[in-house]
């Protein structure tokens, strides 16, 4: 079949899913997600066509005599379609079980399908108006999904999200128009061919705007502020999609404009991207560490991972402008690899968080604990997600971060001194990020899944339904798969690399080895995995041959002689992160309030109230002042409409007189 038919079949399935969800068929509603997952498969087939064939126009229709809707696809779109499809497939299956207890199932099904379609539309858009329509549709639908529970709090989060994204869109519109003005075309492909006509300084402007515009969606620091508010507010299957793939459409837009359409830029573009990436990754993970809301924590990790992706992409741009195409290809692949990896493991983690919330009715880790025993599968999958996101071998995050390290390390080969300096600094940032991420997920997994249950809900938690487990299982399996078979992912990435850098086959693959010939370095996660397994057996054999068979006695944990540990004595998430909070207090600006009330001062304490928080720096010192300023101006301007008719008449007179004086 030709790619168009996969496209139409896919669209058909999603639309069917959307429509059937709205019909009053309560039983059927739960299973419309099967249609979505089938649709995702169809789109996955389409993506393979796009990846391994020449770019083609898929669909085109007239909006009016002025504009056309046009969809087209090339390797870049293909890659993103594939990423979306993988996550959609798993999330759809997960949703079957997840939405069972949800109110407004029908609306959820409708929005879910439209949301996914709009994401596909974004990455397949062939011209600017199609892109804008798809982009904003995606934003609006996701806005509705964020505000799905219709509570005031989510409404506020949704509002911030929608407004931020709209600001981004404004920049995108301007940059599109700049491109249109100087290339005379609204099609991305024509723009790309004619982009050399754009004056140099305007190219820079387009680049800056693409960072702001798409960066808002992607959630780079300091434009990330909506992300930790909106993602947690949405139902978890949606959070998974939002964090896993929706923010990647921002990356897609950035790649499409700054790397594809504009082609090669000056060196500082790449450096700027690296700096932004480094800042996003470090600050993202640092704020994540201080979160005790499981979903907000994960949302901040999205900021971090977008930063890591940008480190790779930035390095790629930097090398390209320095003429080092091989290195550029490596860095590019690192960025893309991390993109797909993040989609998989972040999706998995959000689904896991969703299952946990489903079982414990809370997002607050301080109320969880001991869930691994009551929810063994969810726990295992969450653990796999955690290991992957911490880039620990042999899972997928390791491979992409390793590639990113390699590409940053290779910066020393660059002829420019700035690149040479900036790239190891990027590497240091990545190392710091990695360590912080590990600490963060020790906290996230340790506090919520290990130890003792901290309240009734956690104690009575039940394992999720089968479809949810399968959904998570698919993603967990993918984490392992993409980790131990990097060659598989590379096959998909090579066309993209070829399209953007003109190179195939770097980094190379050889059996289970992933190698970079420039540094003679190789890794083989498969070999590491095998070593771990073989050595475990060897160890077990060795131990029992020396120690023989020994008894295991179960008892209470060491309690210093005080009878019975209670869950309240456990380390909390707040306590866990205290040293980090203290060490980085310049960044966190922690504040604490201690209120002690006494019966007899200072001997008998009645109660102690402790309140601690870290300062949300960007909200407090950037966004709030701006909002306050605008509101203050607005209050002033409001005096214009003071209710006095005489004043209004005076406006007419003054307007006329001014026009008479200056107009004629």
């Amino acid at each position: 079949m030709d790619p168009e038919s996969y496209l139409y079949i896919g669209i058909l399935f999603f639309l069917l899913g959307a429509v059937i969800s709205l019909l009053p068929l309560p039983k059927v509603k739960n299973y419309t997600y099967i249609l979505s997952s089938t649709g995702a498969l169809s789109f996955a087939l389409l993506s393979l066509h796009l990846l391994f064939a020449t770019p083609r126009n898929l669909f085109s229709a007239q909006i009016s005599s002025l504009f056309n809707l046009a969809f087209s696809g090339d390797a870049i779109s293909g890659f993103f379609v594939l990423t979306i499809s993988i996550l959609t497939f798993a999330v759809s299956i997960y949703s079957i079980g997840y939405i069972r207890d949800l109110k407004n199932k029908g609306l959820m099904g409708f929005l879910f399908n439209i949301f996914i379609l709009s994401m596909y539309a974004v990455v397949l858009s062939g011209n600017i108006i199609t892109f804008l329509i798809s982009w904003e549709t995606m934003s609006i639908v996701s806005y509705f999904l964020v505000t799905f529970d219709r509570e005031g709090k989510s409404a506020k989060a949704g509002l911030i999200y929608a407004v931020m994204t709209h600001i981004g869109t404004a920049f995108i519109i301007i940059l599109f128009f700049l491109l249109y003005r100087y290339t005379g075309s609204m099609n991305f492909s024509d723009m790309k061919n004619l982009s050399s006509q754009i004056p140099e300084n305007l190219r820079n402007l387009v680049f800056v705007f693409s960072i702001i515009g798409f960066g808002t969606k992607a959630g780079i620091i300091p434009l990330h502020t909506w992300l930790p508010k909106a993602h947690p507010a949405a139902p978890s299957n949606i959070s998974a999609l939002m964090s896993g793939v929706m923010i990647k459409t921002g990356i897609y837009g950035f790649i499409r404009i700054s790397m594809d359409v504009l082609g090669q830029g000056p060196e500082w573009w790449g450096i700027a991207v690296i700096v932004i990436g480094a800042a996003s990754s470090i600050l993202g993970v640092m704020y994540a560490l201080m979160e005790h809301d499981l979903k907000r924590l994960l949302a901040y990790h999205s900021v971090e991972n977008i930063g890591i992706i940008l480190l790779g992409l930035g390095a790629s741009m930097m090398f390209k402008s320095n003429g080092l195409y091989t290195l550029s290809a490596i860095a590019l692949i690192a960025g893309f690899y991390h993109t797909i990896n993040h989609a998989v493991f972040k999706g998995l983690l959000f689904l896991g968080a969703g299952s946990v919330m489903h079982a414990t009715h809370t997002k607050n880790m301080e109320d969880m604990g001991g869930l691994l025993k009551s929810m063994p599968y969810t726990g295992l999958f969450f653990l796999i997600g955690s290991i992957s996101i911490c880039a620990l071998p042999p899972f997928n995050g390791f491979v992409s971060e390793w590639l990113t390290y390699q590409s940053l390390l290779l910066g020393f080969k660059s002829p420019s001194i700035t690149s040479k300096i900036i790239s190891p600094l990027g590497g240091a940032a990545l190392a710091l990020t990695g360590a912080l991420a590990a600490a963060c997920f020790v906290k996230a997994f340790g506090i919520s899944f290990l130890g003792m249950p901290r309240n009734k809900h956690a104690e009575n938690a039940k394992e999720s339904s089968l479809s949810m487990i399968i959904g998570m299982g698919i993603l967990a399996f993918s984490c392992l798969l993409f980790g131990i078979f990097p060659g598989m992912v590379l096959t998909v990435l090579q066309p993209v690399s070829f399209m953007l850098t003109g190179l195939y086959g770097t980094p190379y693959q050889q059996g289970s080895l992933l190698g970079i010939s420039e540094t003679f370095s190789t890794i083989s996660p498969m070999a590491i995995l095998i070593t771990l397994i073989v050595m475990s057996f060897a160890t077990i054999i060795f131990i029992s041959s020396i120690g023989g068979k020994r008894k295991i006695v179960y008892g209470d944990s060491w309690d210093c002689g005080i009878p019975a540990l209670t869950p309240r004595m456990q380390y909390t998430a707040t306590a866990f992160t205290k040293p980090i909070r203290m060490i980085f207090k310049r960044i966190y600006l922690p504040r604490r309030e201690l209120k002690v009330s006494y019966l007899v001062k200072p001997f008998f304490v009645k109660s102690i109230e402790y309140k601690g928080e870290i300062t949300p720096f960007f909200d407090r010192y950037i966004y709030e002042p701006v909002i306050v300023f605008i509101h203050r101006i607005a209050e002033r301007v409001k005096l214009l409409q003071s209710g006095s008719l005489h004043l209004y008449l005076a406006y007419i007179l003054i307007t006329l007189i001014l026009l008479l004086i200056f107009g004629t």
Partner: protein
Amino acid sequence: MMITILLIPIVTAILCYLLRNHRLIGYVNLGGAVILSIVAVPVIVSAIASPIGHSGMFNGMFYMDALSGYIMAMVIFLGLASSIYSISYLEHELNAGLIDIKGLRRYYALLHLFIFTMLLVTAANNLALMWIAIEATTIVSALLIGLGFTKRKLAIEAAWKYIILCTVGITFALLGIFIAYYASIAIVGTEGALNWTELKGIAAKLNPSTMRLAFIFILVGYGTKAGLAPVHNWLPDAHSQAPSPISAMLSGILLNTAFYGIMRFTSIVEPSTGSVFTGNLLILFGIISIAISSIFILVQENYKRLLAYSSIEHMGIISLGLGIGGPIGIYGALLHILNHALSKPLMFFASGKIQAHYGSTKIENVNGVLSSMPLLGILTFIGALSLSGTPPFNIFISEFAILKAAVDKGMWHVVGLFLFFAVIVFYGILSGFGRMLFGRTQNTEDRAQNTDKESLSSGFWFMASDLIMVLMALLIIILGFRIPDFIDGTIKACINVLGVK
């Protein structure tokens, strides 16, 4: 036929005023509107295809071309929609004791007179006749606002401000017409010197400085009526105090009829003064309107006023499109008129129902519309997003066209300012309606007991009004993806009429 079109609403108005039974009045009102639509459609279609004049008693006074047909079609459509909506709306008001049968008769009579005056505006060939018609719309609609469905005091205040400001404004417009007349009789003599048909032919020969002066007066004059800032001040008061179907008519089409005057006049002034002069003035008014309204939208606490300010914003956008000019700019402006005439009435219809349910026009008093009235909530959301210029709804397309026209002319400052204020508007609208639509309804139960729920949410006419709103919402979505060929063609014909190349 044109005369028939004009007569139908007058007859309907008289009948409505004479009858005593409120149900019967409702049916007569509906019948009038339906017959009007049936009669008007072929006339409009033929006008769009080729201009039609009128001979006979009023020789040379009436004339219709594509542009008049386009606007007239909107008048008739919204007239019909408002007639249908009014039935259930007034029934509710009647049951709630906010209005008596006398008020009801007046309401329907004035509604149809209002439609008549607006039809007259579009059908007038003569500049002065059009002026008379526009002034007449002020008087009739002021009475409608003054009917005072809400608080008597507020209604009087709004009506007073409305009538004073618009009359003052329109006085200047008449001055402008005199000056234009003066310029034109210098060329064609007194006969027909104020007719479009004449003026179009001689536009390039008119004295530029005279026409410049005339344009300033007309722009400020009709601009007052069209709601362009800084002479817009009557608009929020009038829109917020008028009964919702009337607000819908005011916002959706009355402003457009005034703007229609500006459009016509611009096309006559432009050949002599050059498009830079008219364009700059229109862009100036457009930007000021967008700027001021966006700020008011941001801090608005009353949703009907919010919608009113949004109308100012959209009139500003239309003015911007006209000012930027060129086929694409005008295309955008004309499409925007249509889009706004769909989205804004939908919102006013919806706000009428919200007001009836919650008994308040304050945003803070309305909570959880999505939960209490899901369909209405969704419709409101579609309308609100459309008004904020968000794809995939209709208004985005026209705004995009206008922006594209600005880009083609290199007016980056316009693009920048527009997008800046568009973000503020988006924020304002979404936060305002977000607060109303989301959340929980605490007070719904108590309020529902006060207002007669039976009449509110059931009954055929209530469903009919819902249906018309759903239809409008569907149009809003469809026009966001595809402008049907007949609309596309009509707009192109209009561009032809305006003489834009």
